């Protein structure tokens, strides 16, 4: 992990969070905003592997916790596990195809929504899962997937350019 990658990750996490809480709150559809932090976590995990995924997820979740969580560590835990599980698929799939990462982002957003529902609503005896499904989880997935189509290639291309630089500087020392 060099300084350039660290800086890139830091800026992207903050950027995603700020966009999610300000700009996309204005462009919301039916009060639902896309989950950019989840896109970033899943993308990093899918491109770089499980370890980067879980660390990215941890910090994304921590940021949400600081601002909007009731307990620090709650969202960090959820994001971290999503990052870790998606990262496990890094070795199985080929990264250049756009369809697979988007599908993974969709699945991870669904898992995120479902876990949130179970932990925050089902435990408080709110059983109407159909309502939450059609009004929050599914719209969030659709919107997130739409944004991910543009967001994922951006993350991928910046990642690739950093990779290239790393390889070049590694060659110098040989």
């Amino acid at each position, binding site marked *: 992990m060099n300084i350039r990658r660290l800086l890139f990750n830091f800026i992207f996490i903050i950027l995603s969070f700020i966009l999610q809480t300000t700009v996309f709150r204005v462009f919301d559809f039916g009060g639902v905003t896309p989950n950019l932090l989840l896109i970033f976590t899943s993308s990093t995990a899918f491109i770089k592997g499980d370890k980067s995924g879980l660390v990215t997820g941890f910090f994304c979740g921590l940021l949400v916790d600081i*601002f909007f969580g009731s307990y620090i560590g709650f969202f960090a835990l959820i994001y971290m596990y999503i990052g870790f599980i998606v990262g496990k698929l890094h070795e199985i799939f080929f990264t250049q195809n756009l369809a697979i990462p988007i599908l993974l982002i969709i699945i991870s957003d669904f898992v995120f929504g479902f876990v949130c529902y179970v932990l925050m609503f089902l435990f408080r005896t709110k059983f109407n899962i159909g309502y939450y499904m059609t009004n929050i989880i599914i719209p969030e997935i659709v919107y997130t997937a739409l944004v991910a189509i543009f967001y994922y290639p951006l993350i991928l291309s910046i990642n690739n350019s950093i990779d290239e630089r790393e390889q070049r500087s590694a060659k110098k020392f040989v």
Partner: protein
Amino acid sequence: MSPVIKRRGEEFTLPSKYLLFILTVICISTIIITFNTSVFTGPLNSFAGVFVVPFQKGITTVGTFLKDTTDKLSSITQLLDENERLKAQLDELTIENTNLEQEKYELTELRNLYELDAQYEDYQKTGARIISKDAGNWYHSFVIDKGSDDGIQIDMNVIADGGLVGRIIDVGPDWAKVQAIIADNASVSGMVLSSSDNLIVSGDLEQYRQGYITFSKLVDDADKVSIGDKIVTSNISDKYLPGILIGYISTIDDDSNNLTKSGKITPAVDFEHMNVVLVLLDQKKNAH
């Protein structure tokens, strides 16, 4: 050989499953710690104040400016028509105002008579702009651009459009987090203004999509409470100042126990289009 042990000539790396385990333990312990205490809020809140809040403020300011400018340009013709109409209305209102002036005089007389001390016009308050809203789609909380530097403290009440918005639940140096009364995890002790019956107002995600919040535990044997009645914050609430308008009753149903009633309230505040709020600087525990 264990993968954790450092070998000669190799960079030290921690396998991801160990890292996952360590971070999981950290997360669970912080959840437990923050569940019981508030040790972390100080340093983490200052971090947020340095890195995130300035950007949120900037973007919100620019966004509001752009929106205002486009609104201005598009509505000039509309404004001219409106101006005509308003001038006519002004005449009517002047007459009405004189009537009201007389009534107000009467009212102050009566208030003095009963020594009723003041509505919430008398509370000290400060305006604040909303700079960001909840990252998730589940709860309704938002961040305003004033914090402990401006004298804001936890549990202060927040109003807008003359109605209750929520209360401060977290404060940083130059920002504060507000939990709205429509959030699914929020509830307020309320009172029917006409009959002084107490009830519990609680936010509900399902109802709010249709523009309502719910109330419950209303004891009203005499059937005095009816649709359209004003609901205000009650005198017995320990966080909210008394007499702040919450909304108007829109439906009432009998509970299955036949003792209490529950139903829906139309909130007085438009939570969708809220940009500026007022924070009441007086707190319930300090007031009077």
